[in-house]
């Protein structure tokens, strides 16, 4: 096992009306194994596109993604994905959802049951094993999605705004859970978020992307994720440097948004 490298990726969407959108341009990135990378950027800067390319749902127009020495050509179980919402299977119970990956691999029932029970304990859903997923709250559903991804033991976990649909309180608890799981399992995680706070708290390394064409604008290495593993996240926010970095990034993204607005206004 080794890291994940994104090699000079460009992605162009050709639209039916003849125009095209340059969603990504020459994005290169090396992610070490066990790294927690958070990605920020204004809406439409290609974050989801980048993640979909890494997941193997999209083939880039140029460049390639290499994981552990092998180029990515399609989706695979070594790259697990946690979606914003709607990816659970309603026709299965919580337990069956979590056991989906192991079952598809043909793992014996007894063995997978052990994994499922353990993971449901970890995410605090032990008592909801046999519930239908539509009976759970949004936060609980995201914990099921996380457990389902972990049950498959992927090398890389890709998350596209996994906490975006949750309320502030649940979100904070889930952030703690993500940090805990990251430390315990040592997985490589790429986390896309809209929240600067979340990116700061969870990202060991933070990437700010710029739009049109989508590219990496700035990169940070941050100490907060490591601190947050054992500490209260609210205390982490009081750490020296946190507020300054947050303001800096907010201003940066704000300016980019302004620029986009200005450009569209000029165009129209």
């Amino acid at each position, binding site marked *: 096992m080794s890291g994940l490298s994104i090699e000079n990726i460009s992605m162009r969407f050709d639209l039916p009306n003849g125009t095209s959108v340059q969603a990504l341009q020459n994005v290169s990135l090396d992610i070490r194994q066990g790294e927690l990378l958070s990605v920020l950027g204004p809406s439409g800067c290609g974050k989801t596109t980048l993640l979909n390319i890494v*997941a*193997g*749902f999209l083939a880039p127009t140029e460049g390639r993604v290499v994981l552990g020495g092998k180029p990515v050509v*399609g*989706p*695979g*179980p070594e*790259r*697990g*994905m946690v*979606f914003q919402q*709607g*990816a*659970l*299977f*309603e*026709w299965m119970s919580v337990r069956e959802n979590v056991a*989906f*990956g192991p079952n*598809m*691999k043909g793992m014996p029932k007894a063995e997978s049951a052990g994994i499922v029970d353990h993971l449901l304990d970890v995410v605090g859903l032990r008592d909801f094993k046999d519930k*239908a997923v*539509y009976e759970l709250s949004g936060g609980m559903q995201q914990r099921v999605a996380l457990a*389902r*991804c972990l049950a*498959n033991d*992927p090398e890389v976990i*890709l998350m596209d705004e996994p906490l975006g649909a949750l309320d502030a309180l649940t979100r904070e608890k889930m952030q703690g859970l993500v940090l805990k799981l990251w430390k315990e399992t040592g997985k490589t995680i790429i986390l896309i978020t809209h929240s600067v706070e979340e990116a700061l708290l969870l990202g060991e390394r933070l990437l700010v992307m710029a739009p049109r064409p989508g590219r990496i604008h700035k990169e940070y290495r941050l100490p907060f994720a490591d601190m947050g593993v054992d500490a209260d996240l609210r205390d982490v926010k009081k750490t020296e440097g946190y507020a300054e970095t947050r303001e800096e990034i907010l201003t940066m993204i704000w300016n980019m948004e302004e620029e986009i607005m200005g450009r569209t206004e000029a165009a129209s």
Partner: protein
Amino acid sequence: MTIALIYVAIFIAAFVAVRATGRFVERQRDFTSLKTVTFGDESAVRPNRIASIISVLAIFLIWGAFTGSKITPIHAPGPFLGETSFTYTAQAPDLSTDEGVVRVNVHRVGEDAAKPEGADGGEGFAKDDAASVAAWRSGLIRVDRNDVGGDAEGYKVIAIDGQPIAPGETVKLADGTVTMTPKGTLNFSPDPGWQMEKIWLPAPEDVWNRLIEIGTDGYRGFTLWEHVGWSLMRVVAGFALGSAVGIPLGYAMGLSNWFRGWFDPIVEFMRPVPPLALIPLVIIWFGIDETGKIVLLFLAALWIMTIAARAGVSGVNITKIHAAYSLGASKWQILRHVIIPNSLPEIFTGARVAMGVCWGTVVAAELVAAEKGAGQMIVAASKFQLTDIVIMGIVLIGIVGYGIDILMRLAENWLVPWKGRS
């Protein structure tokens, strides 16, 4: 027309009455009852059960009232029955006139048709007459036959009950009307009243008695349950075959470019063709026995199920498919564990439609040609004007169709509890 007005009147009266009394009835307290915006919020519109009950009662009331049924206390005026009479004024060739009395016995169809007494009485050349006419029918009365000089050239009837009449004209009497035919003969129609004749619309209890009778004795060599059972059997067989072919076909069309391209023109072309339009062709190809009917129902169900399955596949949320691939599922596993379960709600919706269409189609096909079946029963009965069997058959067809839909809905709730919850 009158009936429609009466129905509207009952509708409004019941609404006003229930509104007035409802104020004193304790309202059901739940979440919906606390909603203040109900006009436009479809989920807050719940059927008023009292209205449903009154609605059904109103239908039976009108039905009973206009058929002279025993089950309803009030009735529309019935046809005139019993003895009535009118006078006619005849004019002899010498322009002298004389009056005669016509006594008419109006009786029920099929009952004793005795003519009243007193025929040939009276003074003068116009002799009295007697006739019997069935209610709702009319009868020619040859008043000239027994008149002295009735066959003479120039003899004619000029008035009825003092009202002048000429060929082609009609005179209204208290208990009926008299029309003079172009040849000068009188035609008496007793007052039909407002009620329907039995061969038009039998009373509810007649239909019920027929149901009991046919339920025990059968009709045309088959018991009632055989008739309905055969229809059902055809529907189930046709639907099962249609689903067995249509669902896999729909999946294939939802999953493969080639299948989609190959079958799209066929499905899109066949979909708007109503199955009823295929009946003649199916009879030519397969004859009128079971094969033909099952082929017809197969075709009726096939396109509906194909389209439902195709819609089920295209309705899969792409994130679910992506999630399954990322969890290491193969194509077959995704089909089996994601696409098929995800399409079940659509398939059930399609199945409900298909069952309804099949049931309607089987009845229509049996109307055209069959030995047994619910549709055959009513078409055979209609040839003998056994309207009570026809209505019984229609009611039964409605009940069975409704029953099928309820069963499908129960199965749906049981098998796809997640419907509409994603």
